[in-house]
């Protein structure tokens, strides 16, 4: 069955059963590595992507739910050559150990910064709660999000727009 998904600014046609969780479609059909399998139960957030701007567990979101919705993955924020603001902040803070949770962390953080560009530390902690990190990188992740917020505040408004037009 052909289903049209709007991923990172582009329409993509996938041929998967409508019950297939977005996670497997992203990884296997579209060959996007960012979202990861961690539990498939909505408990760890390694699969986090943005759906219409909200952080969502792609492991629990069948593509049947996604017609007409806008999906963004970490690949839609930037590339290694041109990283997005949040990715750049994580790189500067070296906010990763094994790195497996990090793409999910970035997407959840992006969802926060999209609607609240200047969150308090308490708000950041509360917002990031659904995402697990087992290596104990939390302090760096919090610093990276704080840094991204500062970088965003310092940017001229014209540059802050979504990067997915360029990097679908």
């Amino acid at each position, binding site marked *: 069955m052909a289903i049209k998904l709007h991923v990172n600014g582009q329409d993509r046609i996938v041929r998967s059963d409508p019950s297939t969780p977005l996670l*497997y479609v992203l990884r296997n059909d579209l060959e996007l590595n960012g979202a990861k399998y961690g539990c498939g139960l909505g408990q760890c957030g390694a699969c986090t992507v943005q759906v219409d701007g909200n952080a969502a567990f792609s492991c629990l979101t069948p593509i049947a739910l996604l017609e007409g919705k806008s999906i963004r993955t970490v690949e839609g924020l930037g590339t290694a050559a041109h990283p997005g603001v949040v990715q750049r902040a994580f790189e500067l803070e070296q906010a990763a150990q094994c790195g497996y949770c990090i793409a999910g962390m970035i997407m959840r953080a992006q969802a926060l910064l999209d609607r609240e560009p200047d969150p308090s530390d308490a708000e950041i902690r509360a917002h990031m709660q659904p995402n*697990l990190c*087992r290596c104990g*990188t939390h*302090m760096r992740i919090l610093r990276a999000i704080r840094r991204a917020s500062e970088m965003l505040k310092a940017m001229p408004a014209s540059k802050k727009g979504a990067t997915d037009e360029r990097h679908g």
Partner: protein
Amino acid sequence: MSDTGEGLLRRRAFLAAGALVVNFSLRGNARAQLSGGGEGSGGPAVVDPKLIGDLKTSPLLDSWIRIDGAGHVTVFTGKVELGQGIRTALIQVAAEELDIAPGTIELVTADTARTPDEGLTAGSHSMQDSGRAIQNAAANVLALLKREAARRWGVAADSLSTNGQGEILSGDARKLSYGSLAEALSLHVDAVPGVPLRDPGTYRTMGRSLPRVDILAKLTGGASYVQDMRLPGMLHARVIRGPSYGTRLATIDIEAVARLPGVVKVVRSGQFLAVVAEQEWTAIAAMRKLQASDFSRTATPIPSGTSREIMKALPTREIVILDTTDAVAPAVASVKANYSRPWLHHGSIGPSCAVAKYQDGIMTVWSHSQGIFDVRRVVADLCELPIEQVHGIHAPGSGCYGQNGADDVAADAALVAKAMPGRPIRLQWMREQEQGWEPLGPGMVTDVEASLDANHRIVAWNYAVWSNPHNNRPVGAGGVIAGGEVVPPHPVPEGKPIPMPEGDGSRNSNPLYVLPNVHVRYHFAKDMPVRVSALRSLGAHLNVFSIESTFDELAKAAGVDPLAMRLSHMQDERARAVMQTAADRFGWAHRRKGDGYRGCGMGFARYKNIGAYCAVVLEVEVDADAGRIRVHRVVAAVDSGTVVSPDGIRNQIEGAVLQSLSWTMTEQARFDALHRRSFDWSAYPIHRFEDVPGSVEVHIVERPGLPFLGTAEAGQGPTAAALANAFADATGCRLRDMPLSAEKVRAVLAARDRA
């Protein structure tokens, strides 16, 4: 080595009688430091004991370093990237000793066809084993390049220098690139000992915090993990088992599932069962159908009770770790305490995964196991292939923190691949399979009794620890789950203790403090009621918790400051420096006094007494009604010898602190008689963002020129102890059985308030 070590050795008395087995503690002898920390097969035999690190077992220079005509350098290591930053650190080491830019180096990690066998990446041994080997191999290679340049120019080799850009320079400004020199050389020669290393004063790379070479890809969706591999024609597999180790599903309607659209094959071999499909989601759905069945237990029932009840009921043999007898002043006070920790999950965020392909008689396995050469041995054994026909390649997974499901999944994937020649097979465990089947960190208990004289000096120290083996690393098919499922099944090997100085349950059971009348006993229980193997820091987590908690209890009995108590019994200068640094940076001298709710505590250990030194000081605030311990501030100090990447060290210690706080405060694997109950994050919660400390600082005590010391596991024990000590300072109550859960906190504080 410090004088302290030799002094202790002379005073040590060895007992040899009957059922006792004596452990030697060889100080300052690198051979006693087993490759990979003594876990797994430990690597190949020593060829040249005069060489440094794993050059001993792989002395040929081109095993480690190759340079092509264009000057591109390839470095080979038998160690692997686990998220600890070793890839970048080893590149820095090589770049430094070769005096070239790190960006020109390609590092190849464990590959049975291409790299040396360095045993496991475990036990915080990578810098000692591989780092030093690469450092010395690089020095050897540079010496050969200089010698060749000297020959061509007709000058003395020691008149030549390097400029950090891959060029040798003569005194009169002539230049030759490494590439042009290497073309004329063979590096297929043995390393020689004693080649001088670069002067740390001239370092360009080592000692700096280079951005890790792997992080940017992980931030931007680059293919970084074994889970990201996509090979042409690859199929997706899921293994079908009961809910946890020692269980089996009852009825399985294989025919119905094999007929499901998209299912390519159902692979059976004895009890081993896997379903293979073109689409991953199809494989998962088919797996769920096959698992909709009752299960029964195949092993003996899991005993119920606390760690103490379970461990003390097991038959053990006693291993003497330390026994000294000294004349001392009479004791005026004593502290007697028992400590414990439960079984713990590794809790890898990404459940284990492997890719395997069997083609033209060659089995290739991509795995995130810490021991790729052992994976090769296991797969050869299980699939009944000659070892030369099995090729193991490391591909990173998520953090493993010891032996998780990686080796089992590699074997599972290989079995499936063998049944489907020509098709790459990607086999991924589900979350509940990782939780249910991986080996756990062993539950352990300790009994401690120590006494003080009238001058607040410790005069006797009696310590006993009970543990299962921590080293059940698979070295043959019997060590993996599939090995027990095929017919005939491979027997599970008996777990053996790792001898000191590494130790396993005994790791860090011998205090670094200078103490008289020390009696340390290891009650080794080979029968494992629960499947266990190595979890980061092994026995050090509980042993350091026990020793450092006892030190605080002794300090309290003596009316002495906990830091002063430690310093007055510690002669190792580096240990003293680390404790003092952490204390000073924390503001220990003018810290807030425990007021019933807030308090401060410290913990110290030198990992294995031969690894990195780490002291942790932290401040807590306790909410008695919620039972919640909030950690406000953590200050750690670490001495890792020569520092390759300061930020890498800080990252490792920060991570160790947070992980240990989660273990110590919150975590506990759960069972009933039939199976494990802690099958997902809901049933096995770990710390989340709301639980982590307010702040964590790590201060590095620099020791340029001293040997590298493994740091990855140095923080676990001191953090656990610091937490318990801070809680005691805050509330006046001691908690000795991990986890220091909300329920226990409420209970002990309610009891305090009743009294």
